[in-house]
């Protein structure tokens, strides 16, 4: 019986792993992680959750799952690292602790630790590099301008302390590309290539940047544009898509996603807005909104993409993810992604949890990580 149980468990994990790999939404990772926890394999669950969060950085369920599994799987390791860092304040111990926090996407804790490293070891490039890395990860997730500005200044500080640091220069080139600072990006990529001329990723990045026209806006304006559009510079290509000739079209994927969500019991209508895509759905029918003025629910997407998304960033609570507005005879759910908003009007007695899970999956499928150097 034990043998059959083990075989069945292994088959379940294999099936879920395939699903996570091929499924375009965070759901596959959540289910795989859950199954691994149930089978008592917290260490593997942690790896899966980390991979999932890297792929879908704004998924609420994956972030919660990662935090939960991290508490179970890494408590002893964390306590040990914290103890060492507190007792010795050595660069190695602080770096290890910051790396640990970065691996589980705890950016605020990683930043705190990296700042301690900077204070105790002023001459070492590790401190500013780690601060820059943590801020970069947070910037890619939240698109808050202040994080982007500080990322660049910290990486430049690290590069000044250690001009031969390949990781720093590589990341600096990537950040510049992300915001559209082509000129500075070329410089940083060239400097990274001077340290490691055979690195294929940097060579590709340098080649791409060298073909692009230089920017006309200041760095501050470029970063502000990233914050306002809640996405990378238009010309940015993530590492995964740099070898492909074209990004796949999203229109069909969005229509399919809206169709599925609109079929949930209790959903009255929904509106989706993203650059160039304004779609409405009702009872399984999906159509593009081209009317002027637009349908009121569609008009509301503008409020969420504009003022509300900017408001949360300016308040210091990061990027807008979800909202639930309870009215007398309806509930309106809002979901934010990378420069996208989905609004769903549902009946008061609808199964909100089911609809929310469906919407999260749907938005997650459009909200993959824009990438960055693989090691970061």
């Amino acid at each position, binding site marked *: 019986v034990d043998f059959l149980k083990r075989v069945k468990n292994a088959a379940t994990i294999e099936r879920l792993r395939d699903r996570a790999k091929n499924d375009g939404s965070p759901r596959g990772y959540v289910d795989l992680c859950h199954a691994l926890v149930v089978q008592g394999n917290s260490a593997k669950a942690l790896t899966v959750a980390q991979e999932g969060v890297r792929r879908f950085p704004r998924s609420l369920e994956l972030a919660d799952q990662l935090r939960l599994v991290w508490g179970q799987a890494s408590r002893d390791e964390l306590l040990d690292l914290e103890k060492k860092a507190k007792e010795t304040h050595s660069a190695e111990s602080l770096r290890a602790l910051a790396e640990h926090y970065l691996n589980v996407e705890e950016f605020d804790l990683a930043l705190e630790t990296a700042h301690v490293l900077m204070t105790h070891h002023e001459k070492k490039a590790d401190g500013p590099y780690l601060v820059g890395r943590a801020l970069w990860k947070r910037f890619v997730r939240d698109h808050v301008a202040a994080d982007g500005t500080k990322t660049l200044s910290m990486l430049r500080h690290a590069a000044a302390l250690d001009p031969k640091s390949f990781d720093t220069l590589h990341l600096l080139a990537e950040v510049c590309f992300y915001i559209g600072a082509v000129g500075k990006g070329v410089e940083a990529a060239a400097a990274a290539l001077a340290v490691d001329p055979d690195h294929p990723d940097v060579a590709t990045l340098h080649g791409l940047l060298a073909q692009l026209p230089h920017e006309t806006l200041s760095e501050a304006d470029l970063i502000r544009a990233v914050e306002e559009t809640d996405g990378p510079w238009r010309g940015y290509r993530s590492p995964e898509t740099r070898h492909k000739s074209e990004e796949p079209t999203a229109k069909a994927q969005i229509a399919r996603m809206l169709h599925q969500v609109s079929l949930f019991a209790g959903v009255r209508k929904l509106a989706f807005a993203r650059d160039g895509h304004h779609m409405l759905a009702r009872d399984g029918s999906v159509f593009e909104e081209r009317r002027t003025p637009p349908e009121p629910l569609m008009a509301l997407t503008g*409020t969420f993409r504009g003022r509300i998304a900017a*408001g*949360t960033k300016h308040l210091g*609570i990061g990027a807008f*993810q*979800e*909202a639930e507005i309870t*009215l007398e*005879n309806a509930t*309106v759910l809002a979901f934010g992604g990378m420069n996208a908003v989905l609004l769903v009007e549902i009946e008061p007695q609808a199964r909100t949890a089911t609809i929310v899970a469906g919407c999260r999956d749907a938005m997650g499928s459009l909200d993959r990580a824009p990438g960055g150097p693989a090691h970061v």
Partner: protein
Amino acid sequence: MFEVLDELNTRPGIRGSLVATPDGMVVASRLNGAFDPDTAAALTSTLLVGAHEVGRQCGDQPMSRFVLVSTRGKVIMIDLGNAYLVVVTDRHIDLSQGLIEIESSAQTLRKMGRIAV
């Protein structure tokens, strides 16, 4: 009113709270130092405008609750009658428990009577 907000702010995960009128004017604020009161007021106003727009387009329904989740925190807005209680929390607060405490504070504020502005 400040006592209710102070009491609410002692709960785990709650980073600050304020009371605002429907047009976004802040009546009483107890936000922790990390938050800029002007930015908080602006966001409150935006959320209220958004909520009113939602209510209007759904047949002039009043909003009773607005829960907003972002990558580093949550904002909860509760209708007090002629004002709103706005609470800023940590990202990882358990809303099933937290909302009970927030609703309880909102109830106390409602009992205090209409807020004269």
